[in-house]
Every structure is written in C-alpha cells, then in structure tokens.
C-alpha cells in the first residue's frame, strides 16, 4: 500500500439541511409554468430540479425534476416530459444556465405544439412553486488523508454528501464538487479528483453515490 499523503489543508465536512419555503405561486397550464420558471428565484429552480433526488433517494431511475413529473403525470404531455427529463443537469454549471435550458425546452415545445397551451391541470393538481432554503453547518469531522476521508464518508449523513457533490457545485457555483477540489488542490491527486468528478451523480441514488465514491477512493488507497 503506498504511503498516504497528508493534506496541506484538511477537508472539513459540512452538512446541509433544507427547509422548503412556499411561494404561493402556482401554474395550471404550460404557459403559466413557463412564465413562472422565467420569473421565480434560482432557489425555486434548484428545489424543483433536486427535490426528487433527496426525497426519493431510494428510487432509481426516477424523473430527476418536478417539472418533468408534472408535465407528464398531470398534463399528459409525455413528449415534453421526456425532453425535460433528458436535460443533462450535470452539464450546467449555474442555476441560471439550467433555468434557461428548461425554459427553452418548454418554449420550443409550445411553438411546435400550440394546442398544448390549452391543457389545464385539475383543481388541486396545479404546479406549486417552492424554494429551497439551505442551512450549511460544519460538522465535527475533519480529515487530513484519504484513509480518514473514506472512514468519514462511510458514516456521514447523506445530506453532507449531497451538499459537497451537488449543492456546492451548482448552487454555490464552485468549479467542481468539493471532494474533487480538495483531493486535487490539497492532496495533489489530480487523477483521483477527475475520477470523482468524471461520472454523472444524477444517475445514482444517494446511497449508491456514497458507495461509488468510497469504492473509487479505497481502490486508490490500495494502490
């Protein structure tokens, strides 16, 4: 087993807990949905593109965003639902870019299918815009090398892994996920950093994501 490198700066695990804030805004058809997607805060877009991942973390594969689910399930617009499901979230580095892509997808669909504007959700089945309020707290877990890192990964909450992988990159607009950033910059292990940032975390359940990162790091430790 190769000697473990000690980090210049330790990795401090944080956890992220969220509260859902209601906006009172609701859409009953695609036109309203589109107008509100353009208007609501980035925290709303973030909520509706990531909520499913957290609340239904045991289900995979799953519709990765609420817009796709509502359009398919409530309005019966399967084709648009499929287009929204297929948006490759990992390709977007900011919520702004993601919002634009979602809006453009709906706009293009409405241009091709003007009759879709006439479909309305039943009372009680409207799309309700919610925003995600994130509380970021440091935990007591601080690690200096890969062995300590992987031990904590095994026991930290799924919220912490979620924060360092998804939220840090997209919502806090960091260039990569926190794990890869630390491994590259504090441990100098570019290859391992790229292995972790190189796969699409949106296609895994959160527990599978945890296991995959553990596996990659353990292989590295074993040499």
């Amino acid at each position, binding site marked *: 087993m190769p000697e473990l490198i000690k980090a210049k700066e330790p990795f401090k695990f944080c*956890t992220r*807990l*969220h*509260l*859902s*804030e*209601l*906006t*009172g*805004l609701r859409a009953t058809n695609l036109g309203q949905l589109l107008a509100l997607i353009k208007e609501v*805060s980035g*925290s709303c877009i973030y909520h509706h593109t990531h909520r499913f991942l957290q*609340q*239904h*973390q*045991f*289900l995979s594969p*799953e519709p990765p965003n609420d817009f796709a689910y509502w359009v398919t*399930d409530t309005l019966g617009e399967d084709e648009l639902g499929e287009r929204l499901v297929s948006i490759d979230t990992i390709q977007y580095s900011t919520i702004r870019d993601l919002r634009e892509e979602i809006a453009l997808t709906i706009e293009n669909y409405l241009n091709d299918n003007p009759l879709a504007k006439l479909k309305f959700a039943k*009372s*009680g*089945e*409207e799309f*309700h815009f*919610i*925003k*995600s*309020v*994130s*509380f*970021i*707290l*440091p*935990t*007591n877990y601080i690690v200096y090398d890969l062995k300590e890192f992987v031990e904590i990964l095994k*026991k*930290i*909450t799924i*919220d*912490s892994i979620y924060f360092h992988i998804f939220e840090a990159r997209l*919502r*806090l607009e960091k260039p990569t996920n926190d794990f890869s950033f630390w491994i590259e910059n504090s441990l100098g292990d570019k290859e391992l950093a790229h292995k972790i940032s190189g796969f699409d975390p949106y296609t895994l359940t959160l527990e599978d994501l945890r296991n995959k990162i553990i596996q990659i790091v353990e292989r590295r430790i074993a040499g």
Partner: protein
Amino acid sequence: MARIEEYIPLVGQAVIDDLRLLGERLKGKVIQHINSTPVGGGVAEILNRMIPLLRELGVDTKWDVIKGGEQFFDVTKKFHNALHGRAEEITQRDFEIFLETSQQNIESVDTCEDIVFIHDPQPIALIKKKSSNKWLWRCHIDVSNPNERVWGFLRDFIVQYDSAVFSAPVFSRKLPIRQFLIPPSIDPLSDKNKELPQETINSVLRKYDIKKDKPIVIQISRFDRLKDPIGVIEAYLQVKKYINCQLVLAGGTAEDDPEGFKVLGEVKERAKSDPDIHILLLPQNDLEVNALQRASDIIVQKSLKEGFGLTVAEALWKAKPVVASNVGGIPLQIKHKYSGLLCHSVEGASFAIKQFLSSPEYAKKLGENGREHIKNNFLITRHLRDYMLLFLSLYHPEDIVHLC
C-alpha cells in the same frame, strides 16, 4: 416517552448528530408553543411527543394552552369546517364571540418568550400582543378551498406574524409573509407505530373475531363522511365479485359528534348483507390500531378531504401496500405506482385493490418503497429538524444560510 438516542437504530447516528448541531444553534432562545388543548387531537399528540425531545436537544421549550368556553369552541369548530370548505352559517355574533374570548386570553397569557409558536386558528388573535419577539403561525388544516369570509377574517391576523407554516403546498396562499412547508410526522416508537410481537397482533384479531383465512382490506378512520366509509364498502363489494377477501372498517367517533353515530348507522346498514365486513367501533387504543394495521394485507384511505392523512404514513411505515385518495397531503406520502396507488373514485379504489390482491410481489415492493419514503421524510426526527430550521430562519432571511 422515548429518548432521542432510541431513534438511532431507526434513522442512524448521523441524523441525531445533525439534530444536536441544530440544538446548539438555538441555545439561549426560548420557544413557547400555544394551542387550544393539552390532550386529544393531532396537534396535542405531536406536541406531547416533540416537546420532551426538543428539550433533550437543548432547545428550551414551553407549552401553554388558551382557555375558552363552549360557545368559543363551537365557533372555532365552525371556523374549522368552513376552512375545510364546508358550508357553514357563520354570523357576526360568532366573530364577536371569537374576539371576546381572544381578548380574555390576550390579557391572561404571557407571550414574552423569544419565539411564540401559535398552532391553528383558535389562539391566532394573540398576535395582537406581538412586541419585538418572533411569532409563527402553524396551520394544521386543509385551507385549499376555504370559506373566504372566515379566511379573510383570519388573514388579518396571519399577516402580522413573521412566518406561517402549512402542511402541503396545495394549502399555501399568496401572503405577504414567509410561508414554509412542514408536513406532519409519525413517531416510529409510539404505541401506534412500534414493532409488535405476532402474539399481540393475533390476540387483537381474536378479540374482534377476525380470521386470517382470506386477505384483509382495512380502513382505519373516524366514522365521518369525509373519510367515505360507504365508498370503501362499495369498492370492496366490486372487488369481492372477483376476489374473495374481507373488509375491516375500524375507528372511533367523537362523543360530541352526533353525525358520527349517524354515519356509523348508515355504514352498518350498508354492510349488513355481507358477513365478511367487520365494523369495529374502537375506543382510543393505539396498540390495537397498530395490530390491525399490521394484520392487514391492504390498507385503504379513501378520504374525500384530508388535512394531511397521517394514517397513510402509519400504514406505509408498516410496509403495507396502500390505496388512498389523491387529496390533501396524501400525494406527498404516495407517489402513484412507486410507493402506493392513488385513486379518485370508488371504481379507481376497487381497481387498485384488485391489482394489489392479484400481484402480491408488486404490492410488497410498493409497500417497501413506501416504508423507505416515510423513513426519509415523515418521521418525527425530520419534523424536529424542520422546526429547528424554522426557528433559525426567523433570524436569517437569506436563501443560503451559513451557520459557521
């Protein structure tokens, strides 16, 4: 009463560690809950379990109850029904009675703690006492289609609060204050939800003379029209044409609810031709409810209207396949075809029951998914976390809060 450590085997050490981290952030703040009754009803039930746990987590928590006479509670019951969208005749005198009793409570209840947490409409007018402290209003009822006169009357109070809390997105309205979504929860260690030995389950079945010789379909709910017990019988009778099964309708009826006995009478009348329908008038007995749920093959909740419908969470926690109406907070608990089956009609309920009875593997998988969903989203530990975050949000208006 369970201690916080006892939840670790169910939710994991790290979840409890997070709760302790949040508790530390609330050191020095005193939270005062105020509602209208210390016992009976969902609000008192959850506060009775949450307050000791919050204290254990280091959150200094008090609980006070307002006073009111028969007339006042008659009016608030009318408000409750009207907020649920039922036709109620509400007079000017009703509003006066509400305000008179509220004034007496304003004079007698001390509300100087850091955070005052008001539950439901009964104590809502206490907001008149607001000073520089923080005030929260928690709405536990379905206000998706309220009587506008009553809602308008209450809205004048609501807008004076710092934030409001609702149980489902469909209940939210446009308000000039922050509003949060916090669904209720179940306690996995309570008598209603804890694991039971098979012998206890069998003895409850023996007590009510229910044999396990054919699948048991059950709905446990008050005998109330909004729970649609007659609709459940209709659905069961449609299933029975093809699949031999039995139906249990179990529940209580409030002493002061004359309509409850009327509904029970109608249910008995409708059920009398089928010996496989068991109508059980249960006194409040959580262990028996737990045993009946665990003994059943399919759990139904065919409500026409629901505040939240926590019986669905209770059923899913026991990994049971659930057929439930797509109303109130139920769709938050069941994703159709993933963690249960949703329905909109008697025919839909009957079709879903048939699907489960004829595909036990499918039923089992959805039940297991349901349990996982409840574990992640509807246990009391999540509720504690949300309440503590809610308290912290009063001091942090931003969307991303760094508590470093």
